[in-house]
Structure formats: structure tokens, C-alpha cells
């Protein structure tokens, strides 16, 4: 890397006085032109179709909302309406609540599996197979995955039938489906793999001799876990938490399909507002969602340098 950097700098000074292109002297400027040409399409695509629309969203959130249209007269009315409305503010709080719960469940359910895959399976092939087994559901249709929970959790669903057969319950439990519970279960199943992967990856990189040394020095299993294994797996936990957070915070399909539209998250607010052509209002909810996400990701990134870990 350093050698190529040296090469980059040298010819520049050689050709600085003359713009004449020679075989040897053109190396740097033509290399730079090639780099520019290579990054231009991707960069322009992202700027034009992602950054500009996001800025547009911020801008439109200050437009005036008419019944079925918006006008570019600046106002904070939509913002005031959002924060003074019980329903919308509650949606913000509910989004944060569901996010925290799903973060906790994906971590609690995912960590032991990651521990087993990353630390206990020594054979690389077996390790890959088990990891692939966990990832395969991710390749199936997102909506079908969500929908599959309906016959599982419903009043006449599989869970209730099994529990009744086992004699654990006399009456079917009704609160399993179309509640916050079903939303959390559905999201956990979909996103837990993003927690397992990074943690297992970090765990598999731990040098076994480190654990051996600790054991030779008389440390117990719990102590080894607490002082060596867990701290070394933390970057994986943070990366997993970032993945889960950005996906859960922007969710609306799971909550719409599994709560019978009773659990409204910020994403659901956006969808309903767009449905009734309240673009300015949807934009306000969008900006708030962006802000929440930016804060969450920024806080999580304080714990880990993403580019270093990848």
C-alpha cells in the first residue's frame, strides 16, 4: 500500500510544470482520471437518488399541507401537529419501545447460538453449515416469513394446539396474535440472524490458547466468559445491534401484518399518511425517524470502529 502511494506522489511533481502526456509521466493523472471515472457512476447514483430525496424529505416537512396536495409555502404546522397529537407521539414512543425489546430478544436468543457456533464448533465446515442453516430463512420472501406466524400464533394456531395437547393450558391463549407480542416474535425471528452472524464471527477469531492460558491459571468457566470471551465478542454485538436497530426502526410491514394494524410504529404512520396524500406529514414522521436512527447508530458507533472490524 505504501509503495503504491509513493508511486502516486512522485510523477505528480514530475509533470506538474507541463501538461504534456508522456508514457511515464501520465501515470498519476491518468490513474486519477480512471479512479474518478470508476467512482463517478456509483457516487452520482447515491447522491442523486438517495441524498437529494432525503434532503427533499426534510424540505417538504416544512411545506403547507392542503387536503389532498402540498404547497411550497414554508410552515412548521406539520411539526406542531405531530408533537401535539397523542397518536403520533405515542407511535414514536412505541417504536422506541419495540426496538429496545427486539434488541434485547435478538441478543438474548442469538448469543448462546453464536457462542456455540463460534467457540464450540471447531470444524470449519460444520461451522459454516450451521451458520448457513441460520441464514437460509433470510433468503425466503420477507412477507411470507411474516405471514407464516399467523397460523403459528393464532387462536387455532400451532402453538395453542401444542400447548393444549400437552395439557399446559385449558383454553387457547388469544393474546398471542395481533398484539405487540406477535410483532416482537415476528421481528425477532426475522432479524436474530443479523445478531448471530457478527457475534459468531468475532468469537471464532478468539485465539484458543488465550482461553487455555486462563484455565491453566485457574480461572473458572464463568470468569473466563466474563473477562475474556464476552469483552472480545463485544464488537460483534455492536455490529449486530446496528444491523437490528436500523432494520427494526424502519419497520412497518411486520407490525401491519402481525398486529392487525393495532400496533402503529413510525413506519406505519408514514404509510398511512402517504396513503391519504398527507405528504408533508409523512415527511415529518420520516425526518423524526431519520433523527432517531442517526442518534442510535452514532451512539453504537462510539463503541466500535466499523471499518477496522470489517
Amino acid at each position, binding site marked *: 500500500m505504501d509503495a503504491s*502511494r509513493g508511486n502516486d506522489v512522485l510523477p505528480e511533481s514530475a509533470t506538474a510544470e507541463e501538461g504534456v502526456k508522456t508514457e511515464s509521466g501520465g501515470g498519476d493523472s491518468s490513474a486519477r482520471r480512471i479512479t474518478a471515472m470508476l467512482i463517478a457512476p456509483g457516487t452520482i447514483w447515491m447522491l442523486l437518488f438517495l441524498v437529494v430525496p432525503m434532503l427533499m424529505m426534510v424540505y417538504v416537512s416544512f411545506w403547507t399541507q392542503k387536503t389532498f396536495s402540498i404547497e411550497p409555502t414554508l410552515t412548521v404546522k406539520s411539526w406542531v401537529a405531530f408533537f401535539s397529537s397523542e397518536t403520533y407521539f405515542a407511535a414514536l414512543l412505541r417504536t422506541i419501545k419495540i426496538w429496545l425489546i427486539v434488541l434485547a430478544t435478538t441478543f438474548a436468543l442469538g448469543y448462546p447460538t453464536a457462542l456455540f457456533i463460534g467457540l464450540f464448533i471447531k470444524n470449519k465446515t460444520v461451522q459454516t453449515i450451521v451458520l448457513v442453516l441460520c441464514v437460509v430463512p433470510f433468503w*425466503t420472501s420477507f412477507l411470507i416469513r411474516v405471514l407464516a406466524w399467523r397460523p403459528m400464533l393464532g387462536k387455532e394456531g400451532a402453538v395453542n394446539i401444542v400447548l393444549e395437547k400437552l395439557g399446559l393450558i385449558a383454553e387457547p391463549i388469544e393474546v398471542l396474535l395481533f398484539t405487540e407480542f406477535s410483532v416482537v416474535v415476528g421481528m425477532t425471528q426475522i432479524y436474530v440472524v443479523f445478531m448471530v452472524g457478527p457475534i459468531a464471527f468475532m468469537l471464532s477469531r478468539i485465539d484458543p490458547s488465550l482461553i487455555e492460558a486462563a484455565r491453566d491459571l485457574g480461572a473458572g468457566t464463568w470468569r473466563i466468559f466474563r473477562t475474556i470471551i464476552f469483552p472480545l465478542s463485544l464488537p460483534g454485538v455492536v455490529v449486530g445491534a446496528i444491523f437490528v436497530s436500523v432494520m427494526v426502526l424502519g419497520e412497518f410491514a411486520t407490525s401491519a401484518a402481525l398486529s392487525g394494524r393495532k400496533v402503529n410504529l413510525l413506519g406505519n404512520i408514514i404509510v398511512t399518511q402517504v396513503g391519504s396524500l398527507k405528504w408533508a406529514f409523512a415527511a415529518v414522521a420520516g425526518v423524526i425517524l431519520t433523527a432517531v436512527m442517526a442518534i442510535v447508530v452514532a451512539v453504537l458507533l462510539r463503541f466500535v470502529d466499523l471499518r477496522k472490524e470489517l
Partner: protein
Amino acid sequence: MENRPFLRSALAFYTALFIGFLYAPFVVLGILSFQAGPEGGPQFPITEWSTYWYEHIFGLTPPSRIAPLPIGEAMIRSLTLAFMTMVTSTVLGTMTAQAFRRRFKGSGFVFYLVVLGMIVPGVLVGLGLALVANNLGISRAWWGTAYVAHVLYTFPFAFLVMLAIFNRFDRSVEEAAWSLGVTPMRTFRKVTFPLIFPGVLSSMLFAFTLSYDEFPRTLFAAGADLTLPLAIYGTFSVEIHPNIFAFGVLTTLFSFSILAVYGILMSLSVRRAKKAAIQEDIQ
């Protein structure tokens, strides 16, 4: 840690349960897709085993009060869109990652700008694009705004995959070819491409499957003609029937066959690479 037999088996048992948790809904969905029709509902018990709902999807059953799933044209649109997205994002990802092989000013900015595409929630991407399109008077369409949104999502995946591939291989191989007077185009075809082929294949797999299944970005960006996930989502709001379960089974099988093709191509390329390495050793 591995010499703790109890802990080991406890964790192995837990992992088995965990995988059960991941797969159970699919198993239940698969079973219920064989419900009797057209009276059988989307729940237990199975009144009678039948393939009625599979026939229903393909329009092979006599007309009943349950409308067939509106998936025919949506499927073609989704496949076309996934193909377009796959080609575009693999090309963009390879180009951008190729640029990252040398250091350049602003590389940090470009890196995060690209990665942003997979971080920003789909609903916001769709909303933003819809707002821009509306204001410019561009009508939204699956082959326009939705296509743009899909590439925003899959291009970062292709970029990261290609970045990992380029990081791994030695550029002196290419330099050797150049110094021997091989043209850059031929070098790319004969040297670079075989080396990066596994990455290209993975990028294509990511892009195709993510696009084919993409829902939140498409919702506001697709306009009047629906893609497959949008058509499926539309059926959620009305009463659901086992035909959607049968469709779930079929689409899952489709995803798995794409994975299988990917696996076969991948192992073929690995085997060829190994063979080449052995030949080099002999020589």
C-alpha cells in the same frame, strides 16, 4: 471451553431449538398449504390433504368465491426488475471497489455514502423518491423509480463483497500481465475476472434475491403496476386463504433453487481454481 461436555451439549441442544424456532413457521405454513379447498381455512386442523391450493394458484381449479392470487404479471415484472437491478449493481459495485484498490482523496466519503444505501430504512428511501418524482412531474414506475431504489439497496452489498475480494488478491499478478505487454482488457478477462468471479457471483446472488423480494422501498416507488411483493402485501388486508401459503412454499422453493445454482457455480469455480493451483505446483 470445548472441554466442558455439559455446557457443550446444553448449548448444542439450545442451538437445535433455536434453529427450530427459525424454521417452525415455514413447516406449519408448508403443512397448511395442503389444506382441503375451497372450504378449508388457513388454520388447523387439516380437514383433508389436497393439492387444491397449488392448482388454485395456477388457475386449474373451477372458479370459486376465492379470487386467484394476482401474481402473473407481477411475477414477470419482479423478475425483470431483479435482473436489471442485478446487472446494474454488480457493475457499479465492481467499478467502485476497483477504484478503492488505490488510495484516493475522499475515499472515506464515498465509502460511507455507498454504505448509506443499505442503512437508510426502505420506507424513507421510497418516500424521498416519491416526493422528488412528484415534484418533477415524473410518474413513478417499477422500471423507473423502483429500479433506482432497488439499486440503492443492492449496490452497497455488491460493493462490500467486491471490496473484500479485491482486498484479498495480490495486484502483482495483474502487474505481471501488464509488464508482459498484455492489454488491460485482456488482463481483465484472463487474469482479474477469474480471480474476482466468486465475488461477482455473490454480488449477483445478493442483488437478485434482495431485489426480487424487496418490499418497503418499492411500496411508494412502484406506481400503479405492482411488483410481486406488493401484490402479495395487497392480499394481507383482506381475508387470507391457504393459497397464499401454497404460494409461500413455491416462492421459497424458487429462492432455494437460486441458492442451489449459486452453490454449484461457486463450487465449480473453487474446484477450477484448485486444479489450476495444483497444475502450477506440478510445473
